[in-house]
């Protein structure tokens, strides 16, 4: 039986809603709620050594743009062992690595790097030594290609015990979380928002150990969503952790219930007429689909038909071209045949005419009209001379002999009668043409068939598309009706869920009350300390502050009350620093709280803090450190002031334009 379970049972009984206590305990256990509360007892975290090697790339004139060729390289040699109390890291020039020293330490402490990307690539190895309640922890890692890999060890009496090794950022962060949360007695913070539970762990706490001059909201830590939880944890409120667990579980249960209520609301909003409309729409869609032929037209087949039609058209075209060529050949052959026939006709007529004229006796010379005498004509036979022109006759026998001689000399060729050859060519062309005409007719018929088939296919394609649309309409109608019916079905209210919600609601109310009761006096003490420290840090007009449980604050300044957000940045910085130191002080003096007593302060003088005020703050911090067990590491450009206020053993200061490392 737990105190919380018992309290919830009694509360419910008083309200007449009694639930069996074992059932209550089960609900709380299932929700991940711790059985008992524990008052925070501070553990002490200290940075004992930061050792970094690598090679840096730098410019002699860091404030000006430097060409890559003029950049210089130098080895990184940082080996610093900060002491207790206030430590100072300083340089006289900017961009000389003072903030990086803080970041190296935080990287090794949390596994999460906040270094500038270029600086990160310069690093080759990091070794850090931390003490938790005087127990030394060693973090060693190499950096290759931006990826850290290394080990975490703890010093034991017999030597070193490995706590784990890691490769990569995620493993590094996870390992450091498990090592540190446990040792510093801190709980992971679960936050439930918009249906999702998120767990914030060690890096969120570690971030709250740093005060950056350019990041002053909220008062405690660096994340507004976590400020209440971190404040409660650091203040040491007993029921804070349990309250956080109950609150998260209750929010989750509440969310589930809201989802359920939303569903019911949606169901209630569905009217009968809407359902009837959806049913009508479904019937119409079904009727529209029935119109279509269930045999599915094949889209591929349609495209194949179009392709065949195209091929057939091509074939028909080729045949018509061949037919045209054949017809041209026929017409050429016919023309040649006619020419040959005319030539033969003319030759025959010429020969016959010649014979006819040769049978006649010439009467006179057609040129000079001189008479051709009978004696001259008769002498043609004996003298072999033309009776008109006196030229010698060519004897036909001689010609035959000459032709015969030529035949002997030349190769004998098969005589080809051109007339026959031409007639054969024409007959052949005729056959070709009639064959091609037949083929073309067939090809044309085939082309037409293919085109008709393709056309019909296209028609079916349109029907297929229409059918598809009808199917989609039907699916939509079914889906709409289904959704309406689903929405109308009343979500059964689970008695188990209701019971769980009720238990968690009561538990949350109780833990909140206990947290408030418990932390009230603590917050009062912290508030007094904050006001005192803020005045010591130079804000002398702040007379009082009231830190509230939700992380907000009222500030009395010059007789008026204002909120934290209404302060100047210089005042905010002082208040924030004062709040962190106050939490450490209370932990130290009263032994209550969970702040590990380590504080990083980055560039405080950057925020409207005059040099004189910085000195005041440093002196005040040094005074606090004398009576309070804490370690503060301050990085500032005002190295000279650091040297004047802080002892040399706690200093890491670069002079002139030198690097801190």
């Amino acid at each position: 039986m737990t105190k919380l379970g018992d309290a919830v049972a009694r509360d419910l009984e008083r309200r007449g809603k009694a639930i069996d206590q074992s059932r209550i305990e089960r609900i709380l256990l299932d929700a991940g709620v711790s059985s008992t509360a524990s008052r925070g007892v501070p553990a002490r975290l200290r940075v004992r050594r930061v050792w970094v090697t690598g090679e840096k790339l730098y410019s002699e004139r860091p404030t000006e743009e430097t060409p890559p060729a003029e950049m210089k390289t130098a080895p990184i040699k940082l080996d610093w062992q900060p002491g207790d109390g206030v430590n100072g890291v300083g340089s006289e020039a900017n961009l000389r690595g003072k903030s990086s020293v803080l970041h190296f330490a935080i990287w090794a402490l949390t596994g999460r790097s906040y270094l500038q990307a270029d600086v990160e690539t310069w690093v080759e190895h990091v070794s850090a030594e931390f003490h938790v309640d005087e127990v030394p922890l060693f973090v060693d890692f190499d950096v290759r290609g931006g990826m850290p890999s290394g080990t975490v060890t703890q010093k034991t009496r017999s030597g070193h015990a490995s706590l784990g090794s890691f490769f990569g950022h995620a493993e590094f962060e996870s390992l450091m979380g498990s090592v540190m949360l446990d040792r510093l007695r801190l709980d992971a913070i679960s936050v439930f928002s918009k249906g999702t539970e998120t767990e914030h762990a060690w890096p969120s706490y570690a971030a709250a150990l740093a005060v950056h001059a350019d990041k002053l909201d909220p008062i405690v830590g660096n994340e507004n969503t976590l400020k209440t939880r971190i404040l409660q944890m650091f203040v040491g409120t007993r029921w804070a952790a349990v309250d956080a667990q109950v609150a998260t579980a209750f929010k989750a249960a509440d969310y589930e219930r809201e989802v359920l209520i939303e569903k019911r609301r949606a169901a209630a909003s569905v009217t009968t007429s809407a359902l009837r409309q959806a049913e009508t729409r479904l019937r119409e869609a079904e009727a529209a689909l029935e119109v279509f032929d269930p045999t599915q037209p094949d889209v591929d087949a349609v495209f194949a038909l179009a392709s065949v039609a195209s091929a057939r058209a091509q074939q028909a075209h080729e045949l018509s071209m061949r037919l045209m060529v054949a017809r041209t050949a026929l017409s050429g052959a016919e023309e040649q045949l006619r020419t040959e026939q005319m030539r033969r006709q003319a030759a025959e007529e010429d020969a016959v005419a010649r014979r006819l004229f040769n049978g006649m006796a010439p009467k006179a010379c057609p040129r000079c009209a001189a008479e051709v005498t009978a004696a001259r004509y008769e002498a043609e036979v004996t003298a072999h001379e033309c009776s008109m022109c006196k030229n010698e006759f060519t004897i036909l026998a001689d010609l035959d002999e000459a032709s015969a001689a030529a035949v002997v000399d030349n190769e004998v060729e098969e005589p080809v009668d051109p007339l026959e050859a031409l007639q054969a060519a024409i007959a052949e062309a005729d056959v070709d043409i009639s064959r091609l005409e037949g083929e073309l007719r067939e090809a044309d018929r085939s082309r037409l068939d293919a085109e008709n088939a393709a056309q019909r296919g296209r028609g079916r394609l349109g029907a297929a598309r229409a059918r598809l649309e009808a199917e989609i309409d039907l699916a939509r109608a079914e889906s709409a009706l289904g959704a309406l019916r689903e929405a109308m079905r009343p979500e059964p209210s689970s008695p188990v869920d209701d019971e769980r919600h009720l238990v968690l609601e009561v538990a949350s109310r109780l833990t909140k009350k206990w947290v408030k009761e418990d932390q009230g006096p603590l917050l009062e003490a912290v508030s007094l300390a904050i006001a005192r420290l803020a005045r010591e840090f130079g804000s002398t007009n702040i007379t009082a502050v009231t830190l509230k449980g939700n992380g907000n604050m009222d500030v009395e300044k010059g007789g008026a009350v204002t909120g934290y957000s209404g302060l100047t940045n210089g005042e905010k910085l002082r208040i924030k620093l004062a709040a962190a130191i106050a939490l450490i002080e209370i932990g130290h003096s009263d032994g209550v709280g969970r702040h590990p007593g380590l504080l990083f302060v980055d560039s405080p003088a950057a925020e409207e803090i005059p040099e004189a005020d910085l000195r005041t703050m440093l002196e005040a911090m040094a005074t606090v450190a004398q009576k309070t067990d804490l370690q503060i590491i301050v990085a500032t450009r005002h190295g000279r002031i650091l040297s004047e206020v802080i002892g040399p053993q706690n200093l890491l200061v670069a002079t002139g334009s030198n690097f801190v490392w």
Partner: protein
Amino acid sequence: MMQHAIRLLAILSECSEPVKTGDPPEGIAVIRAELRLQALDFWLRNPDYLAGELLTKVEDHDLPAHYLSVVEHLLNNPEPDLHWYPMPRWHHGAYEAIDDAFSVLSAYGLALVRRMGGVQKTARSQFFLTHAGRVAAADLAKERVLSWYTEQAKLVALVAGSDNGSTLKKRQYQQAEYARTKLGVNIAPIHSAVRGRLEAFRTTVSGSLAPVAGG
């Protein structure tokens, strides 16, 4: 040239007119102008044009309808087509020099030419057929290979009638293809046009006769 001489002999024999007093005593028939001789030769050498003229005469009822079969024969049978000797067109219509061919006829005493006018410019040439020419033309009509010319020349005579050369030229000009032909280019055939006319005429004739036949 011999062929051309044969054509001229056939034309002189079939298309000439009787001689008159004052003509050379050897001449027994005459063609009194080269223009007429050239026009006659054109029809003899272009059976499609001759067919067109015959069709016109049938259309005009100057010739009986049975000549339509002659027209068809001239258009469709191969023989007339083998005797197609295109003539180029010159200023005076279809023309081809006839001197060489005619000299063959005159050398054998079958024909003679008489020219009127000066040496440089002949005003008119007259072509006479002799008695020997008449005998030779009769032989020609009996010769298997060459008798075609005689028969064709008879059709030319039928078409030409007694029109002089200028009139014949005008008639030939009326046949569109002839007129459209550029100077120096062979006169193109008109088969298809005449065939069209023939078919159209036959359709008209049978159409006009149908009611009679039916009644």
